[in-house]
């Protein structure tokens, strides 16, 4: 390449014109880019200097006029080379030079065209290209100055224009300045100098500069406008492509939908055809058999059943087929000249027997003839569907009227019925396919929901119209308007007299006679199954299938089913879901709310294999499902299994129940429960037994309460009311009078059962507690008696005591006076007449005095004894040791001459009356003191000992003691174990001590051996009832 260019350069080197050397330089740089362009520029400049600029063949330049073109040449070469390099880079872009949205757009390659110079050069390069233009202009003008003189701006104007085009304002302004400088320097005389004599050139420079600026600005705007246009164009193109894509997609979907629709139509059509064929094959032999004599009535009933249902199926298939045809647009209209009135009468007559059977008033008013060009077959379908519809919705004793009239060029048909009518909101919708006025499972009438849709479609085929309104007397009124002439362009066929099949819809009013299916004798204890199914045929089928094994009850509606269930109490219920009025699921819910049916299995028959419905039913308490169609074996297997399970449960329940019954009979406890809302409930046999009622009787709260009377009645009523209102349980013991008039005590308890915070049920137990109550009463009575007896005894004792006190009082007063009289007068005798009395008389008087003195001592002793325990016992803690010390002191003071060794244990305490205990200790110590008189070394001891498992106090001495043989007399009053002359005494002391100790609930014993002292042990219990301390 370089060589080629060098050769090219040499090719032109001989040319005499300097300007020609520009061309190889430009070419070189264009082909080779920046590097080769610069090399070429250097070579060219050298060649030009060497060959063309004088002195020739020498690299010196003498004339400054030759220097200008030479420098211009070099400048030109350098600029062109740089530009070419930039251009080459632009052609092989690794990345777009401008960041336009289009260039970065997906999949659209940046376009590099000749006009895209603006876009592919950067700002500096464009400025350089712009600067190149005045240089080139200067060089060319220098070369051909002779031709252009005197127009010094001649080539500079286009040059600056080009600069503006290339570089915009930023390119044009420097270019214009450069051009001005060069033009003034090179072409304005004096040439090649800036020192100009004439300044008149300045306005032209200003004008030129303004032009340059103007060009630049214009080109800037142009460039911007171009760029914006291009951007908009790209956006539009993009959007367009998207729309195209979406459109394409839509077309695809539409095609698919149409295909699906066709497929569906095709499917319906195929299915209907495929169904019709076997149906025909079923119907034809059936018709033949039914026409002939049939011996067995059962067989005939079966055949009729088959025939009827096959025809129902056929009519449904026909409906579907018509719909499919209409959808496919293949339903053609084949009108002929027909007497419409006759057609109406003929079709109506087919319903006459049905009307008779149902007792429906069916009035037809079709005065004829009324000739019309209609498709007789389709008109018959219309009529049959309308009549059938009317019969379906009209109650048996209702009224249906049909009128046909001519109105202008149209026939008007009106069908009115006295059924429930159609709500205004649904009057349009009833003509929709598969639509029925009261949709859902609760629809009262069978049917596919296609009949009225077909009517509408067929009427529209005739270009007629159909409307539905309420009619003057309620019910529904269909009005059909049919043009008398066939639509234009439809060929009218001559009237034909073809025989047609009956189109009377097979209403589900099969004679119930067919229910009298064979029933083999079933044992009385066979399980009882209730079948609830509105379809008579299905009902009969179920009854006959189950009837071989179970006692079967049939019901034909939900409500009837409910009533029968409550009266016959079946072991199992089999019910359809879709039934007029009360549906199977409603029946299920109603039964499940009644606890009586808690354990009765309920099987639902459903045609819909709908998992959601199943779940809903199972939650509502359904036991099992059977999907129609089902196999008889499966039905029997399920029923059998459920009944077996129920029997097992019942057996287990029964044994549990018997156990419970035995237990409750033993405990005389009965359970009961009743509903708050109804007051009805149940109770166990024991409850009935407690009330002396028949256990099989019906239970109610009111009855239960009626056996209580008076305050008991008020109490139970209040308790029940509070249990219901506040959920408060109760537990009462009340008396009732049973049905047999027996008074019984019962304990009655109740627990409220709450649902959602409301008491719905009370449950409780009642127990016959008569025996206990009687025992309690007896105890109470005895207690009362005992108390009375004790009171009586106490009163007697008190009386005795006070008598005793009065006696003691009397003794102390009245016995002493005579004694004193005896001793007093004796002494008076002695004193006053002593000297005169014989010695013997004095002795007697002395004896009288002694006796009365002794008598006084005895009386004092007796009084002390009686007084010792008189009054109330003031029980308190007594320091016995201290009392003992006091008694000792008294004794010692009474006889200061005696020496006795005392041993008194300190800190002895007991519970008792201090006054009495002091008397006791005084007597015991007195005894010990007295009977130890003769001892040289008398010892008296008071201490506590543990004997016979209890703490006792002991007073002992080392005196004469006593003979244990006489111990029984020890504590008897006035009984002495020693003679008066041995030890004087009254025999009252120990008796007093014993009475005091006994009064404290304690015991005292004395023991001794003669000559070895005596021991007296006594105990003092903490309380009169306690054992001891």
């Amino acid at each position, binding site marked *: 390449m370089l060589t080629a260019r060098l050769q090219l350069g040499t090719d032109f080197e001989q040319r005499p014109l300097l300007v020609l050397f520009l061309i190889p330089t430009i070419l070189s740089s264009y082909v080779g880019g920046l590097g080769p362009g610069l090399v070429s520029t250097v070579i060219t400049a050298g060649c030009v200097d060497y060959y063309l600029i004088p002195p020739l063949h020498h690299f010196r330049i003498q004339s400054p006029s030759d220097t200008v073109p030479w420098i211009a040449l070099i400048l030109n070469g350098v600029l062109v080379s740089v530009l070419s390099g930039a251009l080459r880079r632009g052609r092989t872009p690794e990345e777009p030079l401008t960041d336009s949205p289009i260039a970065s757009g997906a999949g659209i390659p940046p376009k590099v065209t000749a006009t895209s110079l603006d876009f592919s050069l950067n700002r500096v390069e464009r400025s350089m290209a712009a600067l190149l233009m005045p240089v080139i202009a200067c060089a060319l003008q220098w070369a051909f100055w002779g031709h252009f003189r005197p127009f010094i701006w001649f080539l500079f104007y286009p040059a600056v224009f080009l600069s503006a085009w290339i570089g915009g304002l930023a390119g044009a302004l420097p270019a214009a300045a450069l051009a001005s400088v060069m033009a003034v320097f090179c072409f304005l005389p004096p040439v090649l100098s800036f020192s100009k004599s004439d300044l008149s050139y300045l306005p032209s420079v200003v004008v030129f500069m303004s032009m340059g600026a103007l060009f630049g600005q214009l080109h800037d705007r142009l460039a911007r406008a171009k760029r914006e246009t291009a951007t908009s164009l790209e956006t539009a193109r993009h959007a367009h492509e998207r729309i195209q894509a979406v459109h394409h997609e839509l077309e695809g979907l539409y095609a698919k939908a149409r295909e699906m629709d066709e497929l569906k139509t095709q499917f319906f059509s195929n299915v209907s055809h495929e169904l019709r064929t076997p149906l025909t094959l079923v119907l034809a032999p059936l018709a033949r058999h039914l026409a002939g004599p049939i011996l067995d009535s059962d067989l005939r009933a079966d055949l009729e059943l088959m025939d009827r249902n096959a025809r129902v199926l056929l009519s449904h298939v026909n409906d579907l087929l018509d719909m499919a045809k209409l959808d496919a647009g293949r339903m053609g209209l084949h009108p002929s000249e027909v007497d419409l009135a006759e057609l109406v009468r003929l079709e109506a007559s087919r319903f006459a027997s049905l009307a008779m059977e149902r007792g429906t008033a069916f009035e037809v008013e079709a005065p004829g003839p009324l000739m019309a060009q209609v498709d007789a077959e389709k008109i018959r379908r219309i009529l049959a569907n309308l009549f059938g519809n009317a019969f379906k919705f009209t109650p048996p004793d209702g009224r249906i009227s049909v009128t046909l009239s001519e109105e202008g060029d149209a026939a008007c048909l009106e069908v009115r019925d006295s059924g429930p009518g159609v709500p205004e909101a649904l009057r349009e919708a009833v003509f929709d396919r598969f639509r029925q006025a009261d949709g859902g499972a609760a629809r009262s009438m069978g049917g596919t929901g296609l009949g009225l849709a077909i009517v509408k479609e067929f009427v529209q085929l005739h270009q007629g119209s159909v409307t539905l309104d309420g009619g003057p007397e309620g019910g529904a009124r269909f009005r059909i308007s049919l043009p008398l002439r066939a639509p234009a362009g439809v060929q009218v066929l001559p009237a034909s007299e073809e025989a047609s099949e009956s189109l009377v819809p097979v209403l589900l009013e099969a004679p119930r006679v067919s229910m009298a299916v064979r029933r083999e004798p079933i044992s009385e204890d066979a399980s009882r199954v209730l079948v609830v199914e509105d379809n008579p045929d299905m009902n009969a089928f179920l009854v006959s299938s189950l009837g071989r094994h179970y006692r079967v009850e049939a019901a034909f509606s939900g409500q009837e089913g409910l009533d029968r269930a409550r009266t016959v109490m079946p072991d199992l219920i089999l019910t359809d879901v879709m039934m007029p009025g009360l549906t199977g699921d409603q029946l299920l819910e109603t039964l499940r709310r009644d606890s009586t049916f808690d354990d009765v299995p309920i099987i639902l028959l459903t045609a819909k294999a709908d998992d959601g419905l199943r779940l809903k039913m199972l939650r509502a308490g359904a036991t099992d499902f059977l999907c129609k169609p089902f196999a008889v074996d499966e039905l029997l297997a399920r029923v059998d299994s459920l009944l077996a399970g129920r029997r097992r449960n019942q057996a287990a329940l029964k044994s549990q129940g018997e156990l419970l019954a035995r237990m409750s009979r033993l405990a005389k406890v009965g359970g009961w429960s009743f509903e708050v809302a109804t007051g009805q409930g149940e109770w166990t046999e024991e409850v009935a037994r407690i009330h002396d009622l028949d256990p099989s009787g019906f239970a109610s709260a009111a009855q239960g309460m009626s056996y209580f009377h008076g305050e008991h009645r008020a109490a139970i009523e209040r308790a029940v009311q509070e249990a219901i209102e506040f959920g408060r349980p109760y537990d009462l013991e009340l008396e009732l009078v049973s049905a047999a008039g027996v008074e019984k005590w019962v304990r009655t308890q109740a627990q409220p059962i709450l649902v959602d915070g409301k008491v719905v049920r009370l449950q409780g137990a009642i127990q016959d507690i008569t025996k206990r109550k009687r025992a309690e009463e007896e105890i109470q009575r005895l207690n009362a008696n005992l108390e009375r007896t004790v009171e009586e005894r106490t009163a007697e004792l008190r009386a005795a005591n006070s008598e005793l006190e009065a006696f003691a*009082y009397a003794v*102390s*007063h*009245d016995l*002493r*006076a*005579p*004694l*004193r*009289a005896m*001793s*007093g*007068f*004796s*002494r*008076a005798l002695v004193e006053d007449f002593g000297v005169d009395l014989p010695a013997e008389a004095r002795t007697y008087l002395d004896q009288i*005095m002694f006796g*009365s*003195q002794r008598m*006084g001592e005895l*009386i004092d002793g007796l*009084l002390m004894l009686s007084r010792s325990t008189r009054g109330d016992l003031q029980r308190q803690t007594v320091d016995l040791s201290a009392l003992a010390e006091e008694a000792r002191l008294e004794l010692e003071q009474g006889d200061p001459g005696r020496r006795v060794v005392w041993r008194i244990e300190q800190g002895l305490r007991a519970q008792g009356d201090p006054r009495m205990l002091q008397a006791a200790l005084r007597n015991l110590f007195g005894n010990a003191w007295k009977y130890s008189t003769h001892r040289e070394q008398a010892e008296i001891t008071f201490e506590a000992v543990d004997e016979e498992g209890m703490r006792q106090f002991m007073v002992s001495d080392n005196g004469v003691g006593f003979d244990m043989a006489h111990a029984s007399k020890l504590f008897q009053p006035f009984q002495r174990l020693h003679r008066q002359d041995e030890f004087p005494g009254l025999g009252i002391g120990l008796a007093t001590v014993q009475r005091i100790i006994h009064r404290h609930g304690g015991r005292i014993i004395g023991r001794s051996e003669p000559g070895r002292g005596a021991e007296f042990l006594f105990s003092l219990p903490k309380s009169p009832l306690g054992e001891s301390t």
Partner: protein
Amino acid sequence: MKPRGILLVEDNAQDELLTLRSLRKVNLANEVEVVRDGQQALDYLFGEGEFASRGGASLPAVVLLDLGLPRVGGLDVLGRLRNDVRTKLLPIVILTSSDEEQDRFQSYLGGANSFVRKPVDFAAFAETVARLGVYWMALNEAPPLDTRP
């Protein structure tokens, strides 16, 4: 003013005799008036009934009152005497055979000035009565007459 003597209220004739004998030994027998039951004692002291003629001229220096009296009991007599302004300061000695605590308590509560038990032994009895008479008649200063209205 007539010297005031002793009023002995004693239903038992033997005791009366012994009491009078004992008082005679100390020369006080002449100053003793004897009534035999409670009602008589009241009549005597208030000058009522059979003693209306006395007109309540004078009260004894001391009343020796037995408790067990017919008609009106000793304690009742004591109560009535203490409730009357004329006799509420009258020295009253209960002289009885009883040694019941209850009697002693009631007597002091009722306002008796002294409670003396009649010993059964006559020697003791004689001495007791004699000392009583000497004490009340010779040693004891009688209460002043109540001059209040």
